[in-house]
């Protein structure tokens, strides 16, 4: 109780008894010492523990995701793309869902409650409930609040091109790592490595400070292929139709830009859908055009002729006696499918005479012929950067017997892949220059390596044009509005050491002849629809692909549109090998 009167009095100075003062002082002092001791203890003895506890409350190492780069075509359209997806999983003994929740989950996942509960009751501790869902679906499932249902973030790779581009692109396997095709070959370029960084978070979980980067993430880089999606589809469609029409076992088709050597389309049949490949045979995954070889047959003849023209042994109008279509070397005899009298060198190509090619080849040293084949890229892998591409077989000339030299002149006794063959024809399309072949986009014109003279290249190109005109082996290869040039091949297949009655029909050609822009190579394996000649099986495929491709690329025509002259069927020259 304070009264105004009491405030006026100054209280007498207080004096504590000495003992009490000492007691208070001692107690306070003791508290101080205790505090000091405790703080020293915490600072020195329990420092590590406390530091780690503190860090656990505000410091976090968070993962920085890095997705795999996209694969795009030459215009930037996606051919392979990764997108985040979520998988839902449970520990089977920890899942606790009411029947009501199970029904809701089934509705979200578009399945039945029975299926879900059977998935939750199987063997083992861990189970996926649903894999690779769209993130929104997974979020809706999690929003049901089911105890023990967890999510896992993943990436899934999609291939919009599906079966059209399947063998070129390949696919990725577990952990987003390339397993086939370009996905495998360019793994280091495409693959991203997730990083992590240490941050400080506040009570609401927001990141308030970036402390340090533990691992810098390495994002996957995009990769542009030289492939043109439109041409790829065109090539695929025509190849598929041809394989079905001819009841063939397989087929391949390559479209190369004659100026740059870029592969614009590379189609294979049979094929598969890389987005759903659970039960696909390995057989269908092969990119046959690069990883399989075949004996090319007559499509090799232009190289024989070019070698002889370069060596000065013949001129385009030199006359070769074809001996009535039979030539015996040692114990073996070479036949022509058609008996003819003397032929000019041009006609040897036009009518695809084996005897003519063999006689020309035998007039050359084996070294010369070998060098021509080798420089055209046969016997060495085309170096497209595709995994598993093969070199084909071209034996050293010292081991050649005369009969082998003769058969090699028309493409037997050596083997090539389709891309090699298409690329070799750049020599005739580009005035003697062999262009490097590329699966990746390149800019501008590419320097080639001169193999033969301009004169020789043009002479052979002219012979190849004759082959597509009436009187040649492939009038079916003609294209309305464009002059085309090319060579047929009808080669018997070897099984074991014997030539069988199975055939490989092929056609390699270029257009427009006045300034070739595209090279198309078609190979149909074991056509068994009755017809097996390169001209009638592969020729029409060439014609439709080349015609549509040139129009699509807006290449100016170099012939009137009524240029296609098809002779009566019985007048078409057919050839074997």
């Amino acid at each position: 109780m304070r009264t105004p009167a009491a405030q006026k009095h100054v209280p007498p100075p207080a004096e504590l008894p000495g003992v009490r003062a000492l007691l208070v002082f001692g107690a306070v002092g003791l508290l101080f010492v205790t505090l000091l001791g405790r703080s020293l203890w915490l600072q020195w003895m329990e420092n590590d523990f406390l530091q780690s506890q503190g860090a656990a409350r505000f410091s976090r190492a968070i993962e920085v995701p890095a997705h795999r780069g996209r694969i795009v075509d030459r215009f930037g359209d996606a051919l392979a793309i990764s997108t985040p997806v979520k998988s839902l999983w449970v520990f089977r003994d920890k899942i606790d869902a009411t029947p009501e929740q199970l029904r809701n989950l089934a509705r979200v996942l578009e399945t039945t409650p029975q299926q879900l509960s059977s998935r939750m009751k199987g063997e083992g501790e861990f189970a996926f409930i649903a894999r690779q869902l769209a993130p929104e679906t997974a979020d809706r499932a999690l929003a049901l609040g089911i105890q023990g249902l967890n999510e896992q973030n993943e990436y899934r790779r999609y291939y919009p091109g599906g079966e059209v581009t399947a063998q070129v692109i390949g696919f990725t396997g577990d952990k987003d790592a390339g397993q086939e095709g370009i996905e495998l070959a360019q793994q280091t370029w495409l693959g991203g490595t997730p990083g992590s960084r240490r941050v400080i978070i506040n009570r609401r979980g927001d990141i308030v400070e970036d402390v340090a980067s533990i691992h810098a993430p390495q994002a996957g880089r995009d990769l542009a292929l030289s492939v043109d999606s439109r041409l790829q589809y065109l090539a695929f469609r025509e190849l598929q139709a041809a394989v079905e029409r001819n009841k063939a076992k397989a087929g391949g088709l390559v479209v190369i830009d004659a100026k740059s050597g870029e592969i614009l389309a590379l189609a294979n049949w049979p094929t598969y859908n890389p987005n759903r490949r659970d039960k696909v045979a390995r057989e269908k995954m092969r990119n046959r055009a690069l990883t399989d070889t075949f004996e090319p047959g007559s499509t090799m003849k232009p190289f024989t002729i070019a070698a002889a023209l370069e060596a000065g042994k013949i001129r385009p109008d030199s006359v070769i006696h074809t001996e009535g279509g039979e030539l015996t070397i040692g114990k073996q005899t070479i036949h022509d499918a058609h008996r003819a009298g003397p032929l000019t060198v041009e006609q040897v190509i036009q009518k695809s005479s084996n005897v003519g090619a063999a006689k020309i080849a035998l007039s050359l040293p084996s070294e010369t012929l070998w060098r021509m084949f080798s420089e055209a890229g046969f016997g060495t892998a085309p170096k497209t950067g595709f995994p598993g591409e093969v070199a084909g077989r071209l034996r050293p000339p010292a081991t050649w017997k005369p009969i082998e030299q003769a058969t090699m002149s028309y493409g037997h006794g050596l083997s090539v892949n389709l891309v090699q063959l298409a690329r070799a024809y750049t020599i005739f399309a580009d005035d003697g220059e062999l262009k490097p072949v590329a699966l990746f986009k390149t800019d501008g014109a590419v320097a080639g390596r001169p193999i033969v003279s301009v004169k020789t290249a043009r002479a052979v190109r002219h012979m190849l044009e004759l082959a597509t005109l009436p009187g040649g082996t492939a009038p079916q290869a003609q294209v309305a509005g464009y002059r085309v040039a090319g060579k047929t091949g009808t080669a018997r297949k070897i099984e074991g050491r014997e030539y069988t009655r199975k055939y490989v029909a092929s056609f390699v050609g270029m257009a427009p002849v006045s300034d070739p822009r595209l090279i198309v190579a078609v190979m149909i394996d074991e056509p068994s629809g009755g017809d097996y000649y390169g001209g009638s099986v592969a020729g029409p495929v060439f014609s439709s692909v080349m015609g549509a491709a040139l129009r699509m690329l807006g290449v100016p025509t170099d012939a009137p549109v009524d240029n296609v002259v098809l002779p009566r069927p019985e007048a078409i020259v057919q050839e074997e090998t």
Partner: protein
Amino acid sequence: MTRVNVVLLCVLVACALSLVTSRHQARRLNVELEREQARARQFDVEYGQLSLEQSTWGMPARVAKIARESLKMQLPAASRVEIVETPSVK
């Protein structure tokens, strides 16, 4: 001497307070930055999904199928194609 000390004390307090505010500011901005970066990642993902969608809808195989089947279009025969010369093209 005392006045100098008082001034210094005031300066010290002001400095301390400004340190606190700028620190707070920095954290706030950082939160904002993180949020925007998360948004950027989200957009990146969305871009990926959209370009996937675009590629899927625009695949030549699908376009050709629709053109053939629902629009009843067909390729004209070569005889019905008129090629127009444009002087600018070589």
